């Protein structure tokens, strides 16, 4: 059984309908640890030792955050800068995170269509997440495509429930070890990897 660490960063969690739905009852799940960064470090004073211990205790890490100005909220960047130390996560003797799996789970206001070369945002989500991908690579981790809930402003209750079910299925399969990394790497979004295999039809 794999253990998942969700590094969740949302400065206004109480206002986010989508993220509240995605993370509902998450604490009760077997094998999943929620690390609510803005609740844990309201003063941005991250306890590096605590974070390192958490990372070591889990095999799969999720950077779960809304996409703000094409990147993560400030505290998650603070976390990356402080916790992924030279000599521990990367660089000389920095092998502590080697071969751990990591990916971004994001929520974004814009739909999938506007994140495209010809679209309003001009770049794909994958392109915007390149710094995360390279950070993971630097730390010798396995970086997977993102799980994304997009068009959050337009979400109806039903489609939101669809995304919730997908995220839940993703966590289940990751915990159970029921996945093939190579197959996952081929898709653009983990959502697409889940759809045909789980039988969860897109509404």
């Amino acid at each position, binding site marked *: 059984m794999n253990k998942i660490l969700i590094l969740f960063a949302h400065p206004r969690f109480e206002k986010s309908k989508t993220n509240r739905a995605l993370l509902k009852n998450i604490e009760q799940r077997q094998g999943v640890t929620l690390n609510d960064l803005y609740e844990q470090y309201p003063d941005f*004073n991250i306890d590096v030792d605590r974070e390192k211990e958490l990372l070591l205790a889990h095999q799969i890490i999720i950077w779960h955050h809304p996409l703000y100005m094409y990147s993560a909220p400030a505290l998650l960047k603070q976390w990356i*800068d402080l916790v992924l130390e*030279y*000599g521990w996560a990367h*660089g*000389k003797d920095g092998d502590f995170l080697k071969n751990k799996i990591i990916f971004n789970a994001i929520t974004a206001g814009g739909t999938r269509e506007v994140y495209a070369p010809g679209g309003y945002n001009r770049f794909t989500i994958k392109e915007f997440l390149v710094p995360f991908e390279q950070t993971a690579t630097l730390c010798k981790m396995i970086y997977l495509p993102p799980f994304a809930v997009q068009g959050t402003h337009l979400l109806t209750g039903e489609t939101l429930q669809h995304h919730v079910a997908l995220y839940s299925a993703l966590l289940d399969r990751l915990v159970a070890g029921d996945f093939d990394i190579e197959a996952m790497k081929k898709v653009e979004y983990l959502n697409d990897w889940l759809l045909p295999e789980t039988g969860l039809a897109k509404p």
Partner: protein
Amino acid sequence: MSNIFLHDALIYLAAAVVFVPIAKKLGMGSVLGYLLGGIIIGPFFLGFIGQEGKDIMHFAEFGVVMMLFLIGLELEPSNFWRMRNLILGTGSVQLCTTTVLIFAVFLFIGFSWQAALACGLALAMSSTAIVMQTLREKGLTRTESGKSSFAVLLFQDIAVIPILALLPLLAFSAVHAPATGNATLLSGQPGWAQTLTLLGAVGLVILSGRFVIVPFLRFIARIHLRELFTAAALLIVIGTAYIMMLVGLSPALGTFLAGVVLANSEFRHELESDIEPFKGILLGLFFISVGASINFSLIVNNPLKIVALVCGIIVIKASVLFLTGKLSRLSFDQNLLFTLGLAQVGEFAFVLFSFSHQLNILSTQWTDMMMGVTAISMTVTPLLLLANERFIFPRFGTKEKEEKEADDIDVHNPVIIAGFGHFGSTLGRFLRANGINATILDNDSDRVDLLRKMGFKVFYGDATRVDILKSAGADEARVLIAAIDSPETNYDLVEKTKKLFPHLTIMVRARSRLDAYELIDMGVKDIYRESLDTSVRLGIDVLIKLGIRKYSATRAGQNFIKYDEAAMYQLAPHRHDQDTYIFNTREQIQLQEQLLTNDREVNPTLNDHAWDSDLVVNKFADDGSEH
């Protein structure tokens, strides 16, 4: 102090101490316990007290007087205004309909219309003492039926004033001064003059409450002697009652008015908790004497008549109440509670009957009979409620869950701040700025006065008194903040709160580290040393003034606080290791020494190498040298 007094006190107190716990154990409530105790020690059973029970009843009526003072105190004008529809609506429907029905019945029996009207008015009254006590004991004051009951009782209690004023107008001949011996200003006056005197007395109470009593209490409070304040509170109640007696009015109504006038003053909670214990004992005494005064020979001689009267009156009252409850849309079981709860004849009936008797409206025989009926009906109420609870509710009831609505008689805030000095006031302002209302307790009457002028909800009182905490809503609140200047008082408060209100989260201001250790020993989780954050903030600014970048200085401060708090919890248990007694100052020095050594070993700030790229640079330098 005479033997007789001690003898009587012994019997009454023993009756209370013996019968109330038994009644409570049997699930009957304290009122029934007192009443039964009274019946059993009364002249018809054990005979410990004889006819002098009547005198004791007069004395014990003072419990009713105090109760009405307290009810008045709870009636802030704003609350009254919020409940005006309920009070005026249900109250007037109940009182008028009941009076008219009983009037008709008594007229039919053959009473004169004056006597029938007097009886109707008297019998329409319900017992505030019994009902409020019972509701409070069962925790029902906040239910719909509780609110309706309170409204009806309040309307009745207020209505007694005009009724007493009008009764003299019904008298056949007011010239016949009642031969009771206690001549009052009212006796011997024509009806209109009596009415006028009454209105004058009411005006006097209201005016003196506002312009004499409040300044007087402020003066007393500034002397900072607790027992003096209690004495002043009693003086107000007894003084008002005395003046009312002097003009021949019901003292209960006078004190009720005085209570209403003082309800808006900052001394409300302090007065409440000072009078409360006296009220409790005297009310118990009152119930005992009601029980003892039931004339069983009257029942034995005319059993049918008495039973018919009691049943008839209760049936009439109950049906009117049930309809009233329907009109104010009470659910079935709430209505049942309301109906059965208020179906008895109340203590004001004693007053009204004896007044009617004095005015020769009612014959002596009937007055005695009616007094008996009143006492019996009062005894029956707790039994009816018990029957309702045991037999009717389980079958028909859908027990309404107690809902605490925001617009109840007394809105309780989620936070209580004890101590509103420089620490508590900053805290209170911060909370208020964020929309959190706090109930504030402070025992400096000048400050309370000032803060109230500024619109804060501040109460004057010693926060370590359990009764004051209760009236400030400690039962309902979620957080209690102990922000009192004196550490000893804070300890005291923490200790009491932990014991009596275990559900409350206690957050405590600690003056010093030693103070904090004391609190850790007491099991407090949330401790805030007033010296810590401020001095570290100053320290951060020192670093900045010396040229260190602000964010680095800020991080150094954050880390220092974190380290220092961890160290506090770590060192707290070890300070008891010394078996020898150490003086406070020596302990301080030793503590400092310990801390300074620790700081050197684990420097909380110098190890901060976040964003430090020297290591990486060195790596590249190494790489460079290798290649």
